[in-house]
């Protein structure tokens, strides 16, 4: 086998190039590196052909459990992905391009991102969107930092119903800044509004909520917007984009900044990434947004075109005074999101959301038929709901996992006094047969 993988030069070419440079060997090109700074060891195993590497990857993939039926979410959702998404996003010209810093030869990426931004604005009913962030969790953190910047205050309030991973990331992001993060413990799987009122004061920069919540409950935060705006604070909502096929939008609720994870929009589960984070906001906040943004303009002949704009916010211009350190975002995943949304279209997204809810409601009813099982009914739900079991949820989940069913996410890891609770997720991909099977298996596990 040949070990020159992807390095094209023949020995003759290499020789001629070295002659032109005026050195005797490739090693001479590294002469500026003092001997004592050279690598002490370098123990990477020998290489192999693409066929052997692919075989090794296949072996690794086969070490995972195969065909597990997921009734779990946790921020990632097992949704259908139309074939067109991968085929189109996989076009070489999208795939192997860099950030569109040279707009004339990057109109493909730029127009697509402009269309993406528009789709996010329409989905959330907000005015402006950036061209994507890393993921939903970091988008929450960026939104919190944005609220701190906009208000010049030093306190962020976070609803405990927000996805615990998002809350952890937010705390990590803010951990070294001179700011306070205040969490409100959930009440019946909902924001404890009483508790909120006691902590709201003029030091609060913003409140982060989530809809639907980590418990699956659906809420209307419209009244909170007024409450916060009256105090000069911002309302930030993390949303599950598929749910916006049905649910009241951040814009309708008066939310200032909406964020979320775009995995559910045409990105595969892929063991947790890549996906993308989105962020939309009211127009007034646009100059405080992090991340890239594409704007429309014209060329010298008046032809419409697209460019990266407001770059003065960004790190490559503003350095440590930038709105964020973010450089690479998740363009390709955002493109997948755009293609996904465009392939379903207006009515398709509504239909998708309905399917999710219908399946979930069916599962709710089936699970409630099991003796000792009850569903948390403090609020309506979308495609996730919280179930109370007559035994520790962790044990039941572990038992079903052995049968190839991921029955739900036990809450005890994330909330105290929740040993018997778990959150069940039911997307449009789960068939009636699979739901019935879940109910049967769970009944067996619980009742023997």
């Amino acid at each position: 086998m040949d070990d020159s993988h992807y390095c094209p030069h023949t020995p003759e070419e290499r020789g001629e190039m070295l002659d032109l440079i005026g050195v005797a060997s490739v090693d001479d090109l590294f002469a500026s590196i003092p001997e004592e700074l050279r690598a002490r060891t370098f123990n990477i195993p020998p290489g192999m052909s693409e066929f052997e590497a692919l075989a090794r990857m296949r072996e690794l993939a086969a070490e995972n459990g195969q065909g597990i039926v997921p009734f779990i979410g946790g921020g990632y959702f097992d949704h259908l992905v139309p074939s067109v998404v991968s085929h189109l996003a996989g076009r070489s010209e999208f795939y192997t391009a860099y950030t569109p810093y040279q707009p004339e030869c990057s109109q493909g990426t730029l127009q697509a991102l402009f269309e993406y931004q528009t789709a996010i604005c329409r989905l959330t009913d907000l005015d402006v969107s950036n061209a994507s962030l890393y993921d939903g969790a970091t988008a929450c953190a960026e939104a919190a930092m944005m609220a701190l910047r906009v208000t010049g205050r030093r306190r962020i309030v976070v609803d405990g119903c927000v996805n615990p991973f998002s809350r952890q990331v937010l705390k990590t992001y803010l951990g070294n800044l001179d700011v306070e993060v205040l969490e409100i413990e959930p009440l019946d799987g909902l924001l404890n509004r009483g508790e909120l009122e006691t902590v709201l004061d003029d030091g609060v920069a913003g409140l982060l909520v989530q809809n639907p919540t980590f418990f699956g409950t659906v809420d209307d935060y419209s009244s909170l917007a007024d409450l916060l705006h009256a105090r000069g604070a911002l309302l930030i909502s993390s949303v599950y984009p598929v749910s916006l096929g049905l649910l009241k939008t951040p814009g309708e609720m008066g939310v200032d900044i909406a964020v979320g994870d775009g995995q559910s929009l045409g990105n595969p589960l892929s063991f947790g990434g890549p996906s993308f984070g989105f962020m939309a906001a009211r127009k007034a906040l646009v100059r405080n947004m992090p991340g890239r943004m594409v704007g429309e303009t014209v060329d010298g002949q008046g032809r419409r075109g697209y460019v990266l704009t407001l770059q003065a916010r960004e790190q490559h211009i503003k350095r440590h005074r930038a709105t964020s350190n973010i450089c690479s975002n998740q363009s390709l995943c955002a493109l997948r999101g755009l293609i996904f949304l465009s392939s379903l279209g207006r009515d398709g997204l509504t239909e998708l959301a309905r399917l999710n809810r219908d399946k979930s409601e069916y599962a709710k009813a089936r699970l409630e038929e099991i003796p000792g099982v009850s569903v948390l009914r403090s609020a309506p739900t979308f495609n996730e709901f919280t179930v109370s079991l007559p035994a520790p949820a962790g044990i039941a989940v572990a038992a079903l996992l052995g049968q190839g069913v991921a029955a739900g996410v036990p809450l005890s890891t994330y909330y105290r006094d929740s040993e018997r609770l778990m959150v069940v997720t039911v997307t449009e991909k789960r068939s009636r047969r699979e739901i019935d099977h879940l109910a049967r298996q769970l009944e067996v596990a619980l009742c023997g």
Partner: protein
Amino acid sequence: MRLIYEESVAGRRGVALPASDVPVSESLPEELLRVVPAELPQLSELDLVRHFTNLSRRNFSVDTHFYPLGSCTMKYNPRVLEDAALLFEAFHPMTALLPGGEELCQGSLGLLYDLGQLLADITGMDEVCTQPLAGAQGEMTGIMLIAAYHRARGKRKRYVLVPDSSHGTNPASAAMAGYEIITVASGTQGDMDMELFRQAMNDQVAAVMMTCPNTLGLFNPRIREICDIAHSHDALMYYDGANLNAILGRVRPGDIGFDVVHVNLHKTFATPHGGGGPGAGPLGVRQALIPFLPLPRVRMDEHGRLCLETESELSIGRCANFFGNFGVLARAYAYITMLGRQGLMRVSEAAVLNANYIKERLKGHYELPHDLPCMHECVFSASRQLAQGVHAIDIAKYLIDRGFHPPTVYFPLNVREAIMIEPTETESRATLDGFIDAMIEASGLAESNPRVLLDAPLTMPVSRLDETKAARELKVCW
């Protein structure tokens, strides 16, 4: 081209969804519902396919054009990496966090663990965390680890020191981790001026962030001295891995004295850039920093099984939802597996050879601020052409008309009218020669007919765009 919204027709349907096999549920209360559906584009699947296929054709890309973008390492992205990543598309990350779930994710966790080991060997670090989602997040996470490290030792330092030639992400990431920035001006070779550096160092400096070779493509032979000075002030050395493509197998940041390193998989390890992401920025650290690494952390137990550490008192917490951009990590893993030791060393050899070849052939035509052997990239200045009123950007735009993606221009900031060229190891000599010829012609045109440069590009769907208008009359949503 029309926007997809301009192609939309009310009532048109694209992809059909499966029929429901469950009863229709009771409607949600009115106040929880959106009033009107989101006005997403409504078009047929054919029109959708045509729209995005034709949009894609309006891009330059590595697969269609030479893309010598300095500091971005636009190398060939082997196609087989796509097939490799596909194998893991169906696995739900939450599975690993369920009771008993790790057992069902030994393949995915094993890949993460092995990749960490390989990257630790490449960078000379003790452990590598694969969670950071991009280089900049790796940087921020790294500086947070440094802060946690100092804090654990009872210190709250104030500053992070960066050279003026550094990537903008360096100071921005340090600022997000709560530090104030001290910028040190460059000396004659583009590295930090040693005198100014010594003066700037003090015990309140938490870390010094550097890249080596530096942004001019030069390897600083005094780098260890810098490390020693920093360490003498109890500051840690941070290595920006953006330029790792130059030194694979020859230099390991850990051996030189760096304490923290991030790696850009979408640069050095051939994962595609995707028009600006996703990337991945794994972070390597020395032993002393391991306790502070973000969670969940992949570990191997005494039986050789992979497991997740989800609790740790000293951890800085979590910097992403799950385990990083797994799909990107999988591609990089397949790439390293394929290339192996010899292949990786060959990468740097060829990358450095190509950059020096371009440097030598162009230096008669363009000002070369630092005529020294370069590493994987070289930086010219268009200062001579400026006399004819031609700027670096004009040369860049002319190259587009010649079928080449422009090099990076106006970076690094410490070179006037900078033109930064990084050819990478995957380009053949014929391609380099074609590019060199075009560069030489541009320099000739600057003398003979600068109009051609100033009017370029003329072969694209649009000519130069009004960026001021874009920012002033802001329209980011149609």
